[in-house]
Protein backbone atom coordinates (compact mmCIF):
# COMPACT_ATOMS: atom_id res chain seq x y z
CA UNK A 1 0.00 0.00 0.00
CA UNK A 2 1.15 3.50 -0.71
CA UNK A 3 0.04 6.86 0.53
CA UNK A 4 -1.46 9.20 -1.99
CA UNK A 5 -2.44 12.84 -1.93
CA UNK A 6 -4.98 14.13 -4.40
CA UNK A 7 -4.12 17.02 -6.68
CA UNK A 8 -6.48 19.38 -4.89
CA UNK A 9 -5.19 18.31 -1.48
CA UNK A 10 -1.65 18.91 -2.68
CA UNK A 11 -2.59 22.54 -3.14
CA UNK A 12 -4.11 22.58 0.35
CA UNK A 13 -0.88 21.16 1.76
CA UNK A 14 1.25 23.67 -0.15
CA UNK A 15 -1.03 26.41 1.08
CA UNK A 16 -0.37 25.35 4.67
CA UNK A 17 3.34 25.16 4.00
CA UNK A 18 3.34 28.66 2.53
CA UNK A 19 2.02 29.90 5.86
CA UNK A 20 4.38 27.98 8.11
CA UNK A 21 7.49 28.24 5.95
CA UNK A 22 9.06 30.21 3.20
CA UNK A 23 7.72 28.17 0.29
CA UNK A 24 9.83 28.02 -2.84
CA UNK A 25 8.42 26.44 -5.95
CA UNK A 26 8.62 26.59 -9.73
CA UNK A 27 6.86 29.64 -11.15
CA UNK A 28 6.40 30.65 -14.78
CA UNK A 29 7.57 34.13 -15.57
CA UNK A 30 8.11 35.64 -19.00
CA UNK A 31 8.19 32.22 -20.59
CA UNK A 32 10.77 30.74 -18.23
CA UNK A 33 10.22 28.54 -15.20
CA UNK A 34 12.23 29.52 -12.13
CA UNK A 35 12.21 28.54 -8.48
CA UNK A 36 10.74 31.50 -6.65
CA UNK A 37 9.28 32.32 -3.30
CA UNK A 38 5.52 31.89 -3.58
CA UNK A 39 2.79 33.38 -1.47
CA UNK A 40 -0.12 32.19 -3.64
CA UNK A 41 -0.09 28.48 -4.41
CA UNK A 42 -1.98 29.10 -7.66
CA UNK A 43 1.25 30.63 -8.99
CA UNK A 44 3.04 27.31 -8.75
CA UNK A 45 3.84 25.70 -12.07
CA UNK A 46 3.08 22.00 -11.83
CA UNK A 47 3.40 21.33 -15.51
CA UNK A 48 7.13 21.77 -15.94
CA UNK A 49 9.96 19.48 -16.88
CA UNK A 50 12.60 21.48 -15.10
CA UNK A 51 13.50 25.05 -14.20
CA UNK A 52 16.00 27.23 -16.05
CA UNK A 53 18.09 27.80 -12.92
CA UNK A 54 18.62 24.97 -10.49
CA UNK A 55 17.49 25.17 -6.85
CA UNK A 56 21.12 25.68 -5.77
CA UNK A 57 20.38 29.40 -5.56
CA UNK A 58 18.37 28.76 -2.39
CA UNK A 59 21.42 27.28 -0.64
CA UNK A 60 24.14 29.16 -2.39
CA UNK A 61 22.37 32.35 -3.51
CA UNK A 62 23.58 34.31 -6.51
CA UNK A 63 24.39 37.09 -4.08
CA UNK A 64 24.50 36.89 -0.33
CA UNK A 65 25.89 38.86 2.59
CA UNK A 66 28.42 36.82 4.57
CA UNK A 67 28.56 39.25 7.46
CA UNK A 68 27.97 42.89 8.32
CA UNK A 69 30.34 45.18 10.13
CA UNK A 70 28.55 47.03 12.90
CA UNK A 71 29.75 49.69 15.27
CA UNK A 72 29.69 48.67 18.91
CA UNK A 73 31.16 50.20 22.06
CA UNK A 74 33.50 52.44 20.13
CA UNK A 75 34.81 49.45 18.19
CA UNK A 76 33.33 47.19 15.59
CA UNK A 77 31.63 43.86 15.62
CA UNK A 78 31.26 41.36 12.80
CA UNK A 79 27.71 40.10 12.61
CA UNK A 80 27.18 36.90 10.63
CA UNK A 81 24.21 36.67 8.31
CA UNK A 82 21.67 34.75 10.38
CA UNK A 83 18.82 35.81 8.16
CA UNK A 84 17.92 32.32 7.02
CA UNK A 85 14.27 31.32 7.11
CA UNK A 86 12.76 27.88 7.60
CA UNK A 87 12.03 26.90 4.03
CA UNK A 88 10.42 24.23 1.95
CA UNK A 89 11.37 23.80 -1.67
CA UNK A 90 8.68 22.08 -3.65
CA UNK A 91 9.26 20.49 -7.01
CA UNK A 92 12.89 19.50 -6.75
CA UNK A 93 13.77 17.00 -9.45
CA UNK A 94 15.95 14.05 -8.41
CA UNK A 95 18.84 15.36 -10.53
CA UNK A 96 18.76 18.68 -8.69
CA UNK A 97 18.49 16.92 -5.35
CA UNK A 98 21.66 15.06 -6.24
CA UNK A 99 23.15 18.43 -7.12
CA UNK A 100 22.47 19.70 -3.61
CA UNK A 101 23.96 16.54 -2.11
CA UNK A 102 27.06 17.12 -4.22
CA UNK A 103 27.22 20.80 -3.22
CA UNK A 104 27.38 19.61 0.38
CA UNK A 105 30.74 18.04 -0.32
CA UNK A 106 32.78 21.19 -0.85
CA UNK A 107 30.64 23.44 1.33
CA UNK A 108 30.22 21.19 4.34
CA UNK A 109 33.74 19.77 4.10
CA UNK A 110 35.55 20.96 7.26
CA UNK A 111 35.81 23.78 8.01
CA UNK A 112 32.17 23.94 6.96
CA UNK A 113 30.68 26.96 5.27
CA UNK A 114 28.43 28.17 8.07
CA UNK A 115 25.97 30.10 5.97
CA UNK A 116 25.48 27.28 3.50
CA UNK A 117 25.01 24.96 6.46
CA UNK A 118 22.30 27.20 7.89
CA UNK A 119 20.42 27.20 4.59
CA UNK A 120 20.76 23.46 4.38
CA UNK A 121 19.59 22.83 7.95
CA UNK A 122 16.56 25.02 7.58
CA UNK A 123 15.36 23.72 4.25
CA UNK A 124 13.16 20.73 3.54
CA UNK A 125 13.09 19.35 0.02
CA UNK A 126 9.92 18.02 -1.56
CA UNK A 127 11.03 16.12 -4.61
CA UNK A 128 8.98 15.44 -7.68
CA UNK A 129 9.65 12.36 -9.80
CA UNK A 130 9.93 13.06 -13.49
CA UNK A 131 7.20 11.58 -15.64
CA UNK A 132 9.05 12.51 -18.80
CA UNK A 133 12.67 12.90 -19.74
CA UNK A 134 13.83 15.78 -21.87
CA UNK A 135 16.08 15.13 -24.84
CA UNK A 136 19.04 16.58 -22.92
CA UNK A 137 18.46 14.49 -19.78
CA UNK A 138 21.05 11.89 -18.77
CA UNK A 139 20.64 11.60 -15.00
CA UNK A 140 20.62 7.81 -15.11
CA UNK A 141 24.23 7.93 -16.27
CA UNK A 142 25.22 10.11 -13.34
CA UNK A 143 24.07 7.94 -10.47
CA UNK A 144 20.49 9.04 -9.99
CA UNK A 145 17.15 8.37 -11.66
CA UNK A 146 13.89 10.15 -12.51
CA UNK A 147 12.25 8.60 -9.44
CA UNK A 148 15.27 8.57 -7.10
CA UNK A 149 14.24 9.36 -3.51
CA UNK A 150 17.84 9.41 -2.30
CA UNK A 151 18.47 13.10 -1.81
CA UNK A 152 15.07 14.56 -0.98
CA UNK A 153 13.05 14.65 2.23
CA UNK A 154 9.76 13.79 0.59
CA UNK A 155 9.28 12.38 -2.89
CA UNK A 156 6.07 12.86 -4.81
CA UNK A 157 5.34 10.74 -7.84
CA UNK A 158 2.46 11.67 -10.08
CA UNK A 159 -0.22 9.01 -10.62
CA UNK A 160 -3.63 9.18 -12.24
CA UNK A 161 -5.47 11.39 -9.76
CA UNK A 162 -2.78 12.55 -7.41
CA UNK A 163 0.70 11.92 -6.15
CA UNK A 164 2.28 9.04 -4.27
CA UNK A 165 3.84 10.54 -1.15
CA UNK A 166 7.05 8.96 0.07
CA UNK A 167 8.37 10.59 3.23
CA UNK A 168 12.03 9.71 3.01
CA UNK A 169 13.61 11.46 5.98
CA UNK A 170 12.53 12.57 9.43
CA UNK A 171 12.52 16.11 8.16
CA UNK A 172 10.15 14.95 5.44
CA UNK A 173 7.93 13.00 7.83
CA UNK A 174 7.57 16.13 9.92
CA UNK A 175 5.88 18.09 7.14
CA UNK A 176 3.80 15.38 5.50
CA UNK A 177 0.10 16.10 6.17
CA UNK A 178 -1.26 12.80 7.49
CA UNK A 179 -4.83 14.12 7.39
CA UNK A 180 -4.65 14.63 3.64
CA UNK A 181 -3.17 11.25 2.73
CA UNK A 182 -5.13 8.25 1.61
CA UNK A 183 -4.03 4.66 1.45
CA UNK A 184 -4.01 3.34 -2.06
CA UNK A 185 -2.81 0.34 -4.00
CA UNK A 186 -1.85 2.45 -6.97
CA UNK A 187 1.63 1.76 -8.26
CA UNK A 188 4.09 4.26 -9.59
CA UNK A 189 4.46 4.34 -13.37
CA UNK A 190 7.82 3.18 -14.69
CA UNK A 191 10.32 6.03 -14.90
CA UNK A 192 11.03 7.45 -18.34
CA UNK A 193 14.11 6.17 -20.09
CA UNK A 194 16.81 8.32 -21.56
CA UNK A 195 20.06 8.34 -23.45
CA UNK A 196 23.11 6.78 -21.81
CA UNK A 197 26.34 8.73 -21.61
CA UNK A 198 29.60 6.75 -21.35
CA UNK A 199 30.90 8.03 -18.02
CA UNK A 200 32.54 4.79 -16.92
CA UNK A 201 36.27 5.46 -16.67
CA UNK A 202 35.93 9.14 -17.54
CA UNK A 203 38.52 10.20 -14.94
CA UNK A 204 41.19 8.12 -16.58
CA UNK A 205 40.14 9.32 -20.03
CA UNK A 206 40.25 12.95 -18.90
CA UNK A 207 43.66 12.44 -17.45
CA UNK A 208 44.92 10.81 -20.66
CA UNK A 209 43.47 13.44 -22.96
CA UNK A 210 44.62 16.36 -20.91
CA UNK A 211 47.11 17.76 -23.39
CA UNK A 212 45.12 16.85 -26.44
CA UNK A 213 44.49 19.60 -29.02
CA UNK A 214 40.85 18.63 -28.61
CA UNK A 215 40.39 21.26 -25.92
CA UNK A 216 41.68 24.08 -28.05
CA UNK A 217 39.34 23.02 -30.86
CA UNK A 218 36.38 22.68 -28.54
CA UNK A 219 37.12 26.11 -27.15
CA UNK A 220 37.09 27.61 -30.65
CA UNK A 221 33.36 28.01 -30.51
CA UNK A 222 33.02 28.49 -26.74
CA UNK A 223 32.00 32.03 -25.89
CA UNK A 224 33.27 31.78 -22.31
CA UNK A 225 30.06 33.15 -20.90
CA UNK A 226 29.05 31.92 -17.48
CA UNK A 227 25.75 30.46 -18.56
CA UNK A 228 26.66 26.80 -18.12
CA UNK A 229 28.07 27.50 -14.67
CA UNK A 230 25.10 29.54 -13.51
CA UNK A 231 22.48 27.05 -14.60
CA UNK A 232 24.51 24.14 -13.24
CA UNK A 233 23.14 22.64 -10.01
CA UNK A 234 26.70 22.10 -8.78
CA UNK A 235 29.06 24.77 -10.12
CA UNK A 236 30.02 26.63 -6.98
CA UNK A 237 32.81 29.09 -7.81
CA UNK A 238 32.31 32.39 -6.06
CA UNK A 239 33.75 35.82 -5.60
CA UNK A 240 33.85 37.78 -2.34
CA UNK A 241 33.93 41.58 -2.12
CA UNK A 242 33.25 44.26 0.45
CA UNK A 243 30.58 46.87 0.08
CA UNK A 244 30.26 50.16 1.82
CA UNK A 245 26.80 51.52 1.08
CA UNK A 246 26.41 54.82 2.85
CA UNK A 247 28.26 53.53 5.89
CA UNK A 248 26.66 50.07 5.86
CA UNK A 249 29.63 47.77 5.50
CA UNK A 250 29.09 44.21 4.34
CA UNK A 251 31.10 41.37 2.94
CA UNK A 252 29.23 39.86 0.04
CA UNK A 253 29.70 36.75 -1.99
CA UNK A 254 28.35 36.25 -5.49
CA UNK A 255 28.46 33.54 -8.08
CA UNK A 256 31.47 33.43 -10.32
CA UNK A 257 32.63 31.07 -13.02
CA UNK A 258 35.94 29.61 -14.08
CA UNK A 259 35.05 30.88 -17.54
CA UNK A 260 35.43 34.52 -16.52
CA UNK A 261 38.40 36.29 -17.97
CA UNK A 262 40.75 37.17 -15.16
CA UNK A 263 39.46 34.38 -12.95
CA UNK A 264 43.00 33.24 -12.21
CA UNK A 265 44.85 36.49 -12.81
CA UNK A 266 47.04 37.57 -9.90
CA UNK A 267 48.17 41.03 -8.86
CA UNK A 268 50.51 42.21 -11.59
CA UNK A 269 48.44 40.63 -14.36
CA UNK A 270 49.96 37.14 -14.69
CA UNK A 271 47.36 34.50 -15.59
CA UNK A 272 48.49 30.89 -15.32
CA UNK A 273 45.39 29.71 -17.15
CA UNK A 274 45.44 32.16 -20.03
CA UNK A 275 44.02 30.97 -23.34
CA UNK A 276 40.69 29.64 -24.50
CA UNK A 277 41.57 25.94 -24.41
CA UNK A 278 42.87 25.72 -20.82
CA UNK A 279 40.03 27.97 -19.73
CA UNK A 280 37.32 25.71 -21.07
CA UNK A 281 39.19 22.55 -20.07
CA UNK A 282 39.06 23.70 -16.44
CA UNK A 283 35.28 23.38 -16.53
CA UNK A 284 35.35 19.77 -17.64
CA UNK A 285 38.51 19.02 -15.68
CA UNK A 286 36.82 20.13 -12.50
CA UNK A 287 33.63 18.20 -13.18
CA UNK A 288 35.09 14.99 -14.49
CA UNK A 289 38.56 14.74 -12.95
CA UNK A 290 39.34 16.98 -9.97
CA UNK A 291 36.00 16.82 -8.17
CA UNK A 292 35.83 13.03 -8.50
CA UNK A 293 39.35 12.73 -7.11
CA UNK A 294 38.54 14.97 -4.19
CA UNK A 295 35.00 13.84 -3.42
CA UNK A 296 34.50 10.53 -5.15
CA UNK A 297 31.97 11.37 -7.83
CA UNK A 298 31.64 13.51 -10.92
CA UNK A 299 30.35 17.04 -10.43
CA UNK A 300 27.50 16.50 -12.83
CA UNK A 301 23.96 15.30 -12.25
CA UNK A 302 22.86 14.79 -15.83
CA UNK A 303 20.21 17.50 -15.58
CA UNK A 304 21.13 18.66 -19.07
CA UNK A 305 20.67 22.35 -18.34
CA UNK A 306 24.04 23.34 -19.77
CA UNK A 307 23.28 21.32 -22.87
CA UNK A 308 20.02 23.14 -23.29
CA UNK A 309 21.20 26.70 -22.69
CA UNK A 310 24.62 26.72 -24.31
CA UNK A 311 24.40 29.27 -27.12
CA UNK A 312 26.94 27.36 -29.19
CA UNK A 313 26.11 23.77 -28.27
CA UNK A 314 29.07 22.82 -26.12
CA UNK A 315 27.41 19.59 -25.07
CA UNK A 316 28.88 17.81 -22.05
CA UNK A 317 27.50 14.48 -23.26
CA UNK A 318 29.38 14.87 -26.51
CA UNK A 319 32.51 16.01 -24.61
CA UNK A 320 32.36 12.91 -22.41
CA UNK A 321 31.98 10.66 -25.45
CA UNK A 322 34.75 12.47 -27.34
CA UNK A 323 37.13 12.28 -24.40
CA UNK A 324 36.46 8.55 -24.09
CA UNK A 325 37.25 8.18 -27.78
CA UNK A 326 40.42 10.20 -27.64
CA UNK A 327 42.64 7.14 -27.40
CA UNK A 328 43.62 7.02 -31.04
CA UNK A 329 42.21 9.95 -32.95
CA UNK A 330 42.14 13.48 -31.72
CA UNK A 331 40.66 16.69 -32.96
CA UNK A 332 36.99 17.36 -32.85
CA UNK A 333 34.77 19.53 -34.96
Amino acid at each position, binding site marked *: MTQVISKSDLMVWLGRLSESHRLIAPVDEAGVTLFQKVSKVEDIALDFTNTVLSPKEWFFPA*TETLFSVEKKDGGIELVPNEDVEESVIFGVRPCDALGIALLDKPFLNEPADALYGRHRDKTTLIGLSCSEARPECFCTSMGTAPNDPANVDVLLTEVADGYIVDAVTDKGKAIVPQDLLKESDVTAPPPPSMETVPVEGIEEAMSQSFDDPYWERLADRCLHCKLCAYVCPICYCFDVRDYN*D*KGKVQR*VRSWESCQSSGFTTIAGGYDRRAGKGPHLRQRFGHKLLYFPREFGSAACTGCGRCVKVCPVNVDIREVIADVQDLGGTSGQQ
Partner: protein
Amino acid sequence: MAVEGFSPRMVGFLCNWCSYAGADMAGTSRMGYPPNIRIIRVPCSGRVDPLLIIKAFQQGADGVLIAGCHPGDCHYVEGNYYARRRLAVFRSLLEYLGIDSRRLRVEWVSAAEGKRFSNVITSFTDDLVELGPRSEVEVGA
Protein backbone atom coordinates in the same frame (compact mmCIF):
# COMPACT_ATOMS: atom_id res chain seq x y z
CA MET B 1 4.42 65.71 -7.17
CA ALA B 2 6.00 67.99 -4.66
CA VAL B 3 6.83 66.31 -1.36
CA GLU B 4 6.78 68.32 1.82
CA GLY B 5 10.27 69.24 2.99
CA PHE B 6 11.97 67.38 0.18
CA SER B 7 15.51 68.50 -0.44
CA PRO B 8 16.93 66.86 -3.54
CA ARG B 9 20.38 65.30 -3.66
CA MET B 10 22.27 66.35 -6.75
CA VAL B 11 25.61 65.42 -8.23
CA GLY B 12 27.31 67.88 -10.54
CA PHE B 13 30.13 66.93 -12.90
CA LEU B 14 31.78 70.23 -13.79
CA CYS B 15 34.47 70.71 -16.38
CA ASN B 16 37.66 72.01 -14.85
CA TRP B 17 38.18 74.83 -17.34
CA CYS B 18 34.83 76.55 -17.63
CA SER B 19 32.04 75.38 -15.37
CA TYR B 20 34.10 74.65 -12.27
CA ALA B 21 35.59 78.12 -12.62
CA GLY B 22 32.05 79.39 -13.16
CA ALA B 23 31.00 77.78 -9.89
CA ASP B 24 33.99 79.41 -8.24
CA MET B 25 32.95 82.72 -9.69
CA ALA B 26 29.47 82.28 -8.27
CA GLY B 27 31.02 81.55 -4.88
CA THR B 28 33.54 84.37 -4.80
CA SER B 29 30.91 86.78 -6.07
CA ARG B 30 28.66 85.70 -3.19
CA MET B 31 25.89 84.63 -5.51
CA GLY B 32 23.72 82.25 -3.57
CA TYR B 33 22.39 78.96 -4.86
CA PRO B 34 20.77 75.99 -3.15
CA PRO B 35 23.29 73.83 -1.27
CA ASN B 36 21.94 70.54 -2.64
CA ILE B 37 24.65 69.87 -5.17
CA ARG B 38 27.81 67.84 -4.63
CA ILE B 39 30.35 68.96 -7.16
CA ILE B 40 32.83 66.64 -8.83
CA ARG B 41 35.48 68.30 -10.96
CA VAL B 42 36.27 66.54 -14.21
CA PRO B 43 38.77 67.52 -16.89
CA CYS B 44 36.10 67.93 -19.54
CA SER B 45 32.41 67.29 -20.06
CA GLY B 46 33.63 64.72 -22.58
CA ARG B 47 35.12 62.80 -19.67
CA VAL B 48 31.75 62.11 -18.15
CA ASP B 49 31.24 58.46 -18.87
CA PRO B 50 27.52 57.64 -18.71
CA LEU B 51 28.55 55.00 -16.19
CA LEU B 52 29.24 57.85 -13.77
CA ILE B 53 25.77 59.19 -14.32
CA ILE B 54 23.90 55.96 -13.76
CA LYS B 55 26.16 55.17 -10.83
CA ALA B 56 25.18 58.50 -9.27
CA PHE B 57 21.52 57.62 -9.73
CA GLN B 58 22.11 54.19 -8.23
CA GLN B 59 23.78 55.73 -5.22
CA GLY B 60 20.68 57.78 -4.59
CA ALA B 61 21.07 61.01 -6.57
CA ASP B 62 17.79 62.72 -7.46
CA GLY B 63 19.44 64.61 -10.27
CA VAL B 64 22.72 64.76 -12.15
CA LEU B 65 24.15 67.91 -13.70
CA ILE B 66 26.85 67.92 -16.32
CA ALA B 67 28.29 71.30 -17.10
CA GLY B 68 31.02 72.11 -19.59
CA CYS B 69 32.40 74.83 -21.81
CA HIS B 70 30.16 76.35 -24.44
CA PRO B 71 30.40 74.67 -27.84
CA GLY B 72 33.44 76.08 -29.56
CA ASP B 73 35.18 76.92 -26.28
CA CYS B 74 36.33 73.47 -25.17
CA HIS B 75 39.82 73.48 -23.69
CA TYR B 76 40.41 70.28 -25.61
CA VAL B 77 38.81 71.82 -28.72
CA GLU B 78 36.10 69.20 -29.24
CA GLY B 79 35.39 67.29 -26.01
CA ASN B 80 32.06 68.94 -25.44
CA TYR B 81 30.90 68.15 -28.97
CA TYR B 82 31.35 64.47 -28.24
CA ALA B 83 29.67 64.93 -24.88
CA ARG B 84 26.70 66.56 -26.55
CA ARG B 85 26.05 63.56 -28.78
CA ARG B 86 26.61 60.99 -26.07
CA LEU B 87 24.41 62.74 -23.58
CA ALA B 88 21.64 63.22 -26.14
CA VAL B 89 21.61 59.47 -26.73
CA PHE B 90 22.07 58.53 -23.10
CA ARG B 91 19.40 60.85 -21.77
CA SER B 92 16.89 59.36 -24.15
CA LEU B 93 17.91 55.88 -23.00
CA LEU B 94 17.43 56.85 -19.35
CA GLU B 95 13.99 58.21 -20.13
CA TYR B 96 13.18 54.92 -21.85
CA LEU B 97 14.24 53.05 -18.74
CA GLY B 98 11.91 55.15 -16.68
CA ILE B 99 14.26 57.78 -15.29
CA ASP B 100 12.70 61.15 -16.09
CA SER B 101 15.07 62.91 -18.48
CA ARG B 102 14.65 66.14 -16.51
CA ARG B 103 16.77 64.53 -13.84
CA LEU B 104 19.78 64.66 -16.14
CA ARG B 105 20.63 68.27 -16.90
CA VAL B 106 23.35 69.37 -19.28
CA GLU B 107 24.42 73.02 -19.33
CA TRP B 108 27.24 75.01 -20.84
CA VAL B 109 28.63 77.43 -18.27
CA SER B 110 31.74 79.51 -18.91
CA ALA B 111 34.28 80.65 -16.33
CA ALA B 112 32.76 84.11 -16.38
CA GLU B 113 29.16 82.98 -15.92
CA GLY B 114 28.93 82.85 -12.15
CA LYS B 115 25.43 84.23 -12.28
CA ARG B 116 24.40 81.69 -14.86
CA PHE B 117 25.81 78.89 -12.73
CA SER B 118 23.81 80.06 -9.76
CA ASN B 119 20.68 80.26 -11.92
CA VAL B 120 21.24 76.79 -13.33
CA ILE B 121 21.53 75.24 -9.89
CA THR B 122 18.51 77.13 -8.66
CA SER B 123 16.31 76.13 -11.54
CA PHE B 124 17.55 72.52 -11.54
CA THR B 125 16.86 72.29 -7.81
CA ASP B 126 13.39 73.72 -8.36
CA ASP B 127 12.73 71.18 -11.09
CA LEU B 128 13.85 68.33 -8.88
CA VAL B 129 11.73 69.52 -5.98
CA GLU B 130 8.79 69.51 -8.33
CA LEU B 131 9.66 66.02 -9.61
CA GLY B 132 9.96 64.77 -6.04
CA PRO B 133 12.30 62.14 -4.72
CA ARG B 134 13.29 59.25 -6.93
CA SER B 135 11.50 56.19 -5.77
CA GLU B 136 13.54 55.00 -2.82
CA VAL B 137 16.58 53.29 -4.20
CA GLU B 138 17.36 50.10 -2.46
CA VAL B 139 21.02 49.61 -3.02
CA GLY B 140 21.70 46.03 -3.90
CA ALA B 141 18.28 44.91 -2.75
